[in-house]
């Protein structure tokens, strides 16, 4: 793995369109050894496209990707040995045992017979799969299969680890184990890119957060950094019926943003009596008012103008 702080990934000007849809629009991203970058965005924001390009699975329309100084397209095999990717959908060999799965992905990445065995043991321990090593993958639960799926990307100890929605469908225990494993990989010097739209995970990872929306990187920084830069004071309102506050003239200056059909956010320092007066007829449906919390959800909303709530 890389020396802490060394640049592992350098992606410049990544652009990709699927017909009329621009999935990525000139995205730059640099990631250093020992750091975890959480790529945060809604479904369709461009996260998976970006990971696929970095992994060499997708050719960009423009831009370049270097991993440890190796051009992903000019020297495909060498670059591939530096990358471990766990795609979004679970991809394991169900007819093989857990050990056989781990060892196969080690072998195809170039590990010797002895190393692949040793690394399979290490990764199994890291992900709580040791007792399952000789079990057929057919018999694994969803969470166990997900851990094996991720383990297959870790087994050759790649300097760059790409995890696409690693915890989708995982139980809490699996989620925690995966997050611990990611942290451990980073501590050992790997550069990790972790796509998600699940905010508690991003906070648990203590990752550098990159917010992506509509194929563009909009902001990057630590949680504290982003909150200090983008969090705006305001209140959140909850209604008993569906309402649309954008149509209320008296609220225009408070920039209402929908957090859901019955939940809205208003910007600025607000007085409850003043809000009630401005709501007019909608005031009778108001159930609760609370001050906006300085969290990532609000930061994301502030930066993209859209909520992550309801994403799956």
């Amino acid at each position: 793995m890389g020396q802490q702080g060394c640049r592992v990934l350098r992606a410049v000007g990544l652009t990709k369109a699927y017909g009329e849809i621009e999935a990525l629009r000139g995205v730059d991203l640099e990631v250093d050894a020992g750091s975890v970058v959480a790529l945060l965005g809604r479904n369709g924001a461009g996260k998976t496209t970006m990971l696929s390009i970095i992994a060499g699975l997708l050719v960009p329309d423009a831009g370049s990707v270097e991993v440890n100084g190796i051009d992903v397209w000019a020297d495909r095999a060498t670059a591939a040995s530096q990358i471990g990717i766990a795609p979004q959908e679970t991809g394991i060999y169900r007819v093989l045992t857990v050990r056989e799965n781990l060892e196969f992905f080690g072998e195809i990445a170039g590990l010797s017979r002895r190393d692949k065995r040793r690394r399979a043991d290490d990764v199994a321990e890291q992900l709580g799969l040791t007792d399952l090593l000789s079990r057929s993958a057919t018999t694994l639960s969803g969470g166990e299969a997900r851990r094996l799926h991720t383990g297959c990307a870790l087994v050759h100890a790649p300097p760059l680890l790409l995890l696409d929605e690693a915890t989708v469908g995982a139980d809490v225990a699996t989620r925690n184990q995966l997050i611990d494993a990611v942290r451990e990989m980073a501590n050992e010097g790997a550069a990790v890119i972790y796509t998600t739209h699940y905010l508690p995970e991003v906070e648990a990872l203590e990752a550098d957060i990159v917010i992506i929306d509509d194929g563009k990187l909009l902001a990057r920084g630590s949680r504290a950094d982003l909150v200090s830069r983008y969090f705006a004071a305001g209140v959140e309102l909850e209604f008993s019926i569906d309402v649309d506050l954008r149509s209320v003239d008296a609220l225009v200056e408070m920039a209402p943003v929908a957090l859901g059909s019955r939940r809205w956010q208003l910007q600025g320092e607000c007085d409850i009596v003043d809000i009630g007066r401005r709501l007019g007829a909608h005031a009778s449906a108001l159930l609760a008012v609370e001050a906006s919390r300085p969290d990532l959800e609000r930061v994301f909303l502030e930066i993209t103008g859209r909520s992550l709530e309801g994403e799956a």
Partner: protein
Amino acid sequence: MNGFLAISRLQLRIIRRDPVFLVVMFGMPLILMPLMKETIALSLNASGYPDATGAEQLVPGQTVLFGFMVAGSAAFAIFREHGWRTWDRLRASPASPRQMLAGFAAPWVLIHLFFQFVMLGAGGVFFDLRLNGGSPAALLLTVVSFAACVVAIVILAAATFRTVNQVQALVNLGAMVFGGLGGALVPVEQLPGWAEAVAPISPQYWAMDAHRAIFLESGGVADVVGPCGILLSIAVVAGGLASLRFRADETKEFFA
């Protein structure tokens, strides 16, 4: 090279874990052979081979017929990776697309050779198949040429087609129609005139031509060089086209 070897070993391991298809492929011809032996013997006796037991046509015929289906598994193995969502993981590995293709093809050439030897061996043990002066070297050349030819054809199909149903259609067509045309069911000279005329378009025709030379005419290597040369030429052309046509990033549809 690592990628090629790793994928080849993976294929063999998967087959060991789930051998049902192969067991059926090995079992079916052995069940069918005794049902057809007397009829084939009479047919050969009437065609100028009075001492023939029927095994000389029957065993190679069934081997060639089912051999195409066995080879079809090489294509299914590629599509199966798409169904298992492991294809992109292979693509993201250091294995090049050609190493991947070769990694899927090579084990099936070996399995195909094993299948043919088991069939011919069982023919010797259970159905009185004898070389009758035919050359073992010629038989080896025939078996190797046929395995290379049919595996290359199905790999070309896998590289060309987008859905597993299309491949399955080709395998069925290749096994039954081209097998029948090629003389795997009954000798070519007993086919209708039009079928006899088009029979040489079938790879199985050339395999059966070589087998007949060995088992019925006591042929040597020189007698099978022609048909085996054609089989190997088909293998080279199909393999080359597959290599050119194959795009690892193409989406393939496995069974829904």
